[in-house]
């Protein structure tokens, strides 16, 4: 019966929509609510190491007591302690500079691949993707080997007589930037390549035909058409770099911490779950602006049928 089939199909469709929502609610929304709750509590030497704890057996009074005990003083604490503010700034600074470097390196790379002969594109593309097949952690450890005092980098620079005695690379900001730019490069190259590859090359001929020299064609045609990919690349790099933990922890110095490290320290060393949770919430609020911007851009692109 067609009516029944229709009903079934409708049911299936609803199920298909519900499953991802359920997934998001269980693994993202619920943990977020828990972290939000902890961020409003205070530390205690107990198990769990914070209070108040919600006791549902105590009924309405228990609920009242629980909510009465929550306070925003962790957030006040964050605002007035320079350590936290400076590690936020540090994170934003590292993310900004390294995203700029990624763009400077990634755009020409993507452009080169997109303009390479068809038969080369697959191979070049592979070279960008290939490192992804090894664990991220192992690749960062490899950089420790390269950057250490008697590592590969110093050995090469010494043998080329560019430097006279080994330089300190490890545990510096330079090492962090090297690690980040290396690790995030594909996230910049791929979206930029995707937009450049789609670009109709006769547009460049049309620009030349209308009297536009090549360098100007880049600014008037190529760049505006690649902008969507560039913005996607910037957001794909910037957002996770702000919260980056592994790279600064392994390659950077302990004197200046990025926010990811600060959260880790609060959580595991100081056992101050409420402050760590408050930090995580603030970080999320900082990043939500670019994330929402990006999402809206994607939506608009979909609506326009691109």
């Amino acid at each position, binding site marked *: 019966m067609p009516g029944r089939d229709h009903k079934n199909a409708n049911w299936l469709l609803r199920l298909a929509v519900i499953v991802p929502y359920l997934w998001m609610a269980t693994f993202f929304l619920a943990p977020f609510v828990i972290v939000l709750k902890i961020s409003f509590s205070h530390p205690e030497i107990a198990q769990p190491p914070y209070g108040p704890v919600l006791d549902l057996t105590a009924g309405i009074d228990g609920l009242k007591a629980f909510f009465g005990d929550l306070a925003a003083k962790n957030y006040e604490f964050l605002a007035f302690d320079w350590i936290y503010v400076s590690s936020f700034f540090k994170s934003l600074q590292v993310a900004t500079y390294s995203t700029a470097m990624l763009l400077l390196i990634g755009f020409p790379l993507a452009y080169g691949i997109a303009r390479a002969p068809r038969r080369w594109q697959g191979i070049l593309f592979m070279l960008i993707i290939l490192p992804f097949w090894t664990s991220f952690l192992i690749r960062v450890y490899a950089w420790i080997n390269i950057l250490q005092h008697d590592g590969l980098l110093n050995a090469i620079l010494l043998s080329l007589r560019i430097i006279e005695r080994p330089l300190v690379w490890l545990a510096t900001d330079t090492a962090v930037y090297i690690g980040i730019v290396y690790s995030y490069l594909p996230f910049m190259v791929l979206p930029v390549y995707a937009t450049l590859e789609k670009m109709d090359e006769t547009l460049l001929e*049309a*620009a030349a035909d*209308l*009297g536009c020299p090549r360098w100007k064609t880049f600014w008037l045609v190529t760049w505006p058409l690649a902008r969507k990919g560039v913005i996607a690349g910037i957001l794909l790099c910037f957002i996770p770099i702000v919260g980056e933990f592994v790279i600064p922890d392994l390659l950077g110095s302990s004197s200046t911490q990025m926010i990811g490290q600060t959260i880790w320290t609060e959580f595991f060393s100081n056992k101050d779950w409420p402050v760590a949770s408050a930090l995580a919430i603030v970080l999320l609020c900082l990043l939500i602006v670019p994330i929402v911007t990006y999402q809206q851009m994607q939506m608009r692109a979909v609506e326009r049928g691109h």
Partner: protein
Amino acid sequence: MDADLTIGRNHSDGRQRRLAPWADPAARPLVRFEGVSKSFAGVRAIESLSLDIFEGEFFALLGPSGCGKTTLLRLVAGFESPDAGRVMLDGQDLAGVPPHRRPVNMMFQNYALFPHLSVAGNVAFGLKQDRLSKQEIAARLHEILALVRLDGLQGRKPHQLSGGQRQRVALARALVKRPRVLLLDEPLAALDKNLRAETQFELMHLRERLGLTFVIVTHDQSEAMTVADRICVMDQGRVVQVAPPAVVYEQPNSRWVAGFVGDVNLIEGRVVSSDGNRLVIESAGVGRIHLAATVDFARPGDTVWVALRPEKLSLMHERPASGEANCASGRVSDIGYLGDRSVCKLALDSGFEMKIALANNARSIERTVVWNDRVWVTWPQAAGVVLTR
């Protein structure tokens, strides 16, 4: 032959007809190809080709795909450079002049409109490169948009336009710089049939109004015949025939041209006698053919081909009274009704097959000829062309 010697086809009889530049030995060509060759990855696209295009001409490059016609256009635009020979504009060699410095503009087959720019942005793109004043740009923009009937659409982006509108934006963008030569690469290929026919006439009128030189590339022979003053028929990187449309159609210089431009019956035969303006040919297909043609190249015994256009033939149910005309008999094997005309296939008694186009000029639903009818086909002595290759 009038069409051979005059330019333009909408002069009224009262107006002075001027000598066509290609018939005038003193005329200087605007675009000249001199022994141009070009290959791509070892494949020859153009082979030592020479060709002159004159100022004010509507010139069509016609040929099957892969014949090198688009390459010829790209050589003028500067997107390709010749391996050998010279491409000249106004008597000057274009070698080494980059595309953005050539006073020619191209309309691309896929239009190549800038998707991020509005109609006005697209059309004014070329003007801005010339550093014209804002007022000048606005005035030229206004003028050209009115000319191609796009006024009011300045702010639209290409993806908000219909196919026909996009085509006009591309045309306006190429025209607005007033190029010495406008190059059109299959400009109407993406339009549907009615719009295409209409746009062909618009292109002609535009050319007449602006007095520019247009070079169009097309694989559509009726398009070339409609718009062009002269057609260059190309095959495999070579020029086969350059002539006004009527000459290409009525006096093709080879079997290939006769077959490519329009429908044709090709009858192979041997010359029996030739006395200057009368030719007798003996063929296996249709027997003896009498032709009124002044040919000095055919000697008795030569193998030649007679090209007969289907619309020059007529059908009769009775054997025609013996006279001047040629005739042959056969059976109708196929009829295709096309509205304005019907195409008949005739199986002659010799086994030879002939195509005949019958104009449906009487408004009648009854068919005058039906399948398997035994009929006679006749054609006047002046109807056929003798070809030797």
